[in-house]
């Protein structure tokens, strides 16, 4: 910001609000993290205290690593999230390109139809989806989850991406056509790099709900070898006793991969924004 225009009071106020918001947002994560390193007694006695020599314990992590196949769950979650995001971005961008670039009969209707999913939650169709998965033999496979999440993510992706693709210069695409580029090359080489910030936004929006989802893994893929992390962590939550050490440790570890993916996408976001600025 221009230093001549910034007023110290409003700068302090702005930073104050942002810092406050950050603290509020990070507080639960912080509590989970510190408590995952404490003994069960101390978790309940002094939930806000930092672990010290007396209360420090890794029992939660030990339970998690011993119990069940934690790394398999981890891997399942990762495959499902990355697979769904890939399909959402690929098909979402392709559909958005077709809708924004080509004039054809029913273009408008098609756009509305694809956007319908934004308003109707996919969980309404759970029973039908389960039926379908059973008859196609996809129950208890990761494909079941990937397909459902792709369907769930596509409407918003198409909506956002087609809006951005309309803004890509027509002249650029025309130049490509005159130079003999195929429509696929125009799409992948010219248009996609220019809507990268929008792609990153769509990816971030879709990633967290998919990673955290409990509903569809429970219904479509509850088998031991296809359990996702969120579902796997449920074994520690019983009707009568809950192994809080294990739950908190599992949650702490589940944060990491999301964090990594988020850093990757937000890099893209920032790069897209700055490359637009110096155009």
């Amino acid at each position, binding site marked *: 910001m221009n230093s001549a225009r910034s007023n110290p009071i409003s700068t302090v106020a702005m930073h104050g609000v942002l810092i406050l918001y950050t603290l509020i947002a990070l507080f639960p994560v912080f509590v989970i993290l510190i408590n995952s390193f404490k003994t069960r007694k101390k978790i309940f006695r002094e939930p806000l205290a930092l672990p010290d020599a007396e209360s420090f314990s890794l029992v939660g992590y030990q339970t998690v690593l011993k119990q069940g196949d934690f790394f398999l769950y981890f891997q399942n979650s990762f495959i499902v999230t990355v697979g769904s995001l890939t399909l959402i971005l690929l098909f979402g961008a392709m559909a958005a390109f077709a809708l924004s670039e080509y004039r054809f009969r029913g273009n408008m209707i098609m756009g509305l139809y694809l956007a319908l999913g934004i308003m109707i939650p996919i969980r309404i169709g759970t029973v039908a989806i389960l039926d379908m998965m059973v008859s196609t033999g996809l129950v208890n496979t990761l494909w079941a989850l990937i397909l459902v999440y792709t369907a769930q993510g596509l409407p918003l992706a198409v909506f956002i991406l087609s809006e951005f693709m309309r803004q890509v*210069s027509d*002249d*650029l695409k*025309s*130049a*490509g*056509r*005159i*130079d*003999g*580029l195929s429509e696929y090359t125009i799409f992948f*080489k*010219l248009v996609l*790099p*220019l809507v990268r910030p929008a792609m990153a936004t769509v990816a971030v929006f879709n990633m967290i709900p998919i990673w955290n989802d409990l509903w569809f893994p429970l219904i479509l893929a509850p088998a031991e070898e296809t359990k996702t992390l969120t579902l796997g962590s449920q074994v520690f939550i019983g009707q009568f006793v809950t192994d809080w050490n294990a739950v908190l440790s599992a949650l702490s570890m589940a944060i990491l991969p999301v964090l990594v993916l988020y850093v990757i996408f937000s890099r893209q976001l920032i790069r897209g924004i700055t*490359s637009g600025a*110096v*155009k």
Partner: protein
Amino acid sequence: MTALTLTNVNKSFGNVHVLKDINIEVEEGEFVVFVGPSGCGKSTLLRTIAGLEDVTSGEVCIAGDVVNQTPPSKRGIAMVFQSYALYPHLNVRNNMALALKQAKESKETIEERVAEASRMLSLGDYLNRFPSELSGGQRQRVAIGRAIVRHPKLFLFDEPLSNLDAALRMNTRLEIANLHDQLGATMVYVTHDQTEAMTLADKIVVLRDGRVEQIGSPMELYNNPTNQFVAGFLGSPAMNFLPANLLEDGSPNTLGVRPEDLALDDAGPLEVTTKHVEQLGGDTNVIADCHGHQITVRLFGQHAINAGQHLRLGIADGKSYFFDAQGNRLS
């Protein structure tokens, strides 16, 4: 041979009829300028020639072949856009080479053509830069270079100078004129700027609302406009239009006089009050009020005229144009 023939070309977007029955012939080696106000369909016409839009009806012929069904890359054309439209992910050399690579030309040919184009446009120092590292004028030269390397049968320019500042615009205009002389290529150039049209064209096509108003050499159109629109569009400052009854009582027609065809004349027929005087040094433009109508007079040299002065003006012999109520020229 004719380089380009358009026969009864029509183009509609849904219910919007944009191009109406266009007939144009362009000879080989000719520099033709399509000129008209914004939104009159110039770009659409150029895009139908390029094959970026299909015609709704009619025929497009390039170098004798009907190309209605031919994709843009096979039409033997090259196009330069107002927004440059350089590929952001390729450097200058590859921007120019891409079309040739797509056409599977040999490495040597590509190298040779890029070198030739960069020599003509003095782009040698920039070949490894990316478009984002170039100024507007340099970008436009790269865009022109990208067209040259293809050795097209037909160059298409869509307002290539609109995004440049005034000084650069004039230089680039000269550069394009030179290029036309050097290459002897056929060029179709679209602009809304009548100065560009007058200075560059062998032949001007004036368009309005998707219709061809008049076709001819710049001086033919200037001296002999067939209607009021063409008369008013070409020339700067623009032609003055006054009710003809100022000269002859009861005439329903419109009188047109170019600013330079008016002169101070104490016995002249027009009585005016000056409102504003623009001293340009070489010329003096007087903006005056003539019975409620604004009139511009262009006097050669410097004149001590003040606002509010009463003047009488005469019209040079044979330089009055008359138009009927529909705007058609009366001989």
